[in-house]
């Protein structure tokens, strides 16, 4: 049996007055997937997330969420939740009261997750009875996530959920989202943090000026025949540099370009993936131990910059 897509958007167009916020956007998100939305400011990410949440309706195109066609505002099917432009929390209530009020709103039949349980999941148990007024941005983000978890979502839509999170908070949020996806729920999130998206998402969609410029698996971005800069740390930097220069399609980036990675043991090479494979093989044959090989800029960030800059220069 084919399970319907969690999100299927075809030719979605959304206008705000004379401005086209989304221009013929296609999007397909499979159930159980964590899907990232990337794009520069004003690319249409929040508008698209708002459409998924049912906050507005598309002016053109068709949108199906959890197998249900959505043609008007507030018509998203049950099981869809999340937040855009930050979580909606009431500062005069405590964290627990915010969740309790939301749980009461949903009714006893719909409440399947305990308030204590979701607070524990996002690491806010100790401040559960503090008023939200005093919460940091990161704590608010985590409480917003807890509010979303309270309803046991089938599609969770999050706008910049990592904003303001410290490393521990980020790890906690990532753990929650991964477990949610592992249990079959779908997560669509936007972020400017490429490392977050790479750590969480199996697929991404890159938007620029309201149009989709890439949509697909993260691996596809790095597999594409695009040169990237890689940090190469070996047992013999001199030999590694010589071998890199000898390998076809591999260039050595001068140390001034390497910025903060400037290190005597590190050689920064620029190469497409197949050429990089060949370089590694040559290093091994030359008995040079490879201690570290990592992209200086993540494939997603590189692709993001390349695609969006390309788009900007093409306009």
């Amino acid at each position, binding site marked *: 049996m084919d399970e319907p897509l969690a999100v299927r958007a075809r030719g979605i167009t959304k206008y705000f007055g004379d401005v086209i916020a989304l221009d013929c956007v296609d999007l397909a998100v499979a159930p159980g997937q964590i899907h990232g939305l990337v794009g520069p400011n004003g690319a249409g990410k929040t508008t698209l997330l*708002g459409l998924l949440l049912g906050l507005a309706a598309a002016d053109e195109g068709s949108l199906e969420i959890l197998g249900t066609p959505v043609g008007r505002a507030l018509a998203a099917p049950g099981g869809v939740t999340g937040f855009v432009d930050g979580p909606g929390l009431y500062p005069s209530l405590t964290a627990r009261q915010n969740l309790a009020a*939301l749980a009461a709103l949903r009714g006893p039949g719909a409440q399947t997750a305990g308030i204590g349980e979701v607070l524990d999941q996002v690491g806010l148990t100790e401040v559960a009875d503090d008023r939200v007024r005093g919460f940091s941005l990161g704590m608010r983000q985590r409480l917003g996530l807890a509010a979303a978890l309270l309803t046991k979502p089938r599609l969770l839509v999050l706008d910049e959920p990592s904003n303001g999170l410290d490393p521990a908070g980020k790890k906690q949020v990532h753990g929650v989202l991964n477990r949610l996806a592992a249990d079959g729920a779908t997560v669509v999130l936007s972020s400017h943090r490429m490392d977050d998206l790479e750590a969480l998402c199996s697929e991404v969609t890159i938007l620029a000026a309201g149009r989709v410029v890439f949509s697909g698996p993260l691996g596809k971005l790095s597999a594409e025949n695009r040169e990237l800069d890689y940090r190469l740390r070996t047992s013999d930097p001199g030999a590694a540099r010589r071998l890199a220069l000898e390998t076809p399609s591999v260039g050595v980036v001068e140390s001034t370009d390497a910025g903060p990675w400037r290190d005597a043991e590190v050689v920064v090479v620029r190469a497409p993936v197949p050429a990089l494979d060949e370089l590694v093989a040559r290093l091994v044959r030359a008995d040079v131990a490879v201690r570290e090989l990592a992209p200086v800029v993540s494939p997603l960030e590189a692709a993001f910059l390349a695609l969006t800059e390309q788009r900007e220069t093409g306009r």
Partner: protein
Amino acid sequence: MTATVTETTGPVPVARAYRFELVKLLAQWRIRLLLLACWLAPALFVAVVSQQSSLPVDTLFGRWMNVTGWAGPLVMLGFAGTYALPLLTSVVAGDVFASEDRLGTWRHLLVAVRSYRRIFVAKALASLTVILALVVGLAVSSAAGGVLAVGDRPLVGLDGHLLAPADAAGQVLLAWTCVLAPTLALAAIGLLGSVALGRSPMGLLLPAVIALTMQLAQMLPLPVAVRLALPSYAFIAWNGLFTSPAQLGPLLIGIGVSLVWAVTATTLAYRLFLRRDFTSSTYDGSGRRAITAGALPLLGLAGLTVAILAAATPALGSGIDQDKVQRSVATAFAHLYRLQTGQLHRPDVTEAQLGVTAECTKGGGLNAAEGPGNDWRCVVYWRLPGIEATGSAIYQLDVTADGRFVADGDGPKEVNGYFQVRTPTGDEPNPLWQFDGNVELLPTHPKG
């Protein structure tokens, strides 16, 4: 995590959304403070003021505060209609939608409730509930303060007749119930301002500003039809409950007008809310839409009401004429004369035996004897059984545009001068010295 997938379907029922809104409102410190103030402060105020030698005689029933506990809630009602209720409706209804703009929680609420209509109904009902709790607090607290501090004693009405304690309590309750209508109108204007103006402070201030404007209008010598067409008139018209017979015409018109305003303003707010764009997180309202879809229809309603009232009642003048003033002064004097007679342990006389009449002039007879002003002068005449001579007394009257007057005794001092009268409950000023009265603004037909 054990996230079993469960379906939550459809919009949230209004009852749950209402409870959610109520929880949010009651969590705000200013609402809690207001509730506390409305349930405690009036009792303290009435209890303390009632024990003072200097009473707020400028306020209706203020001069009776140390005589009966039922004067306190009426003094509070006058204060509430002028200041407290417009401000309370501003703080509650004027902020109930705008607070979501300020906190940036609209999208959260829409995702959670999934119905514009239910959000509107829940917010309107929740704010109404809080406003009702505040009004009940003002009424109960001031009545309790008065009765506990002064006692459950008869109240002197605006035409001088005495209301037994039970009747006074009933009329006080009825008067407070009547002002719920204009309070509803102000609350609806608050909702409209809150929806139309978003985070703008003007939304919060709108009921207070409109109430103040209407109060200023009530102080002007406007035609009665215009005066009655304003919803704020019901904040004054309850005075008519304290005459015998009660002046129900203006009161019922005032309540009716207020309710029409409440329904109209709520409907306008609802229509504006449905047409609002929630895609922007920084909505500061739409000035043009607030005028075209909010202010203009209400101005149209006011114009239409004036036209209907002008056609239905020949009330295009001030409503204050010589005949009405004379009748009001004579009636009040007769009732108060009986009260004074009793206090001075003189033989009782009836109003019919007294046969009180009054002759009033304005501006020393140089002006037409009509309209408000502090230059009214009345000479009151009466007779006593078995005495040939006719008694007379002079009063200077300050008649305000809303029909209320204060009569100040100008001699002879044995009749209407200032002196203390010993009563079973303590010394009181001579009841004929100064008294409040009320002229019914609508055309009246004297009996007999």
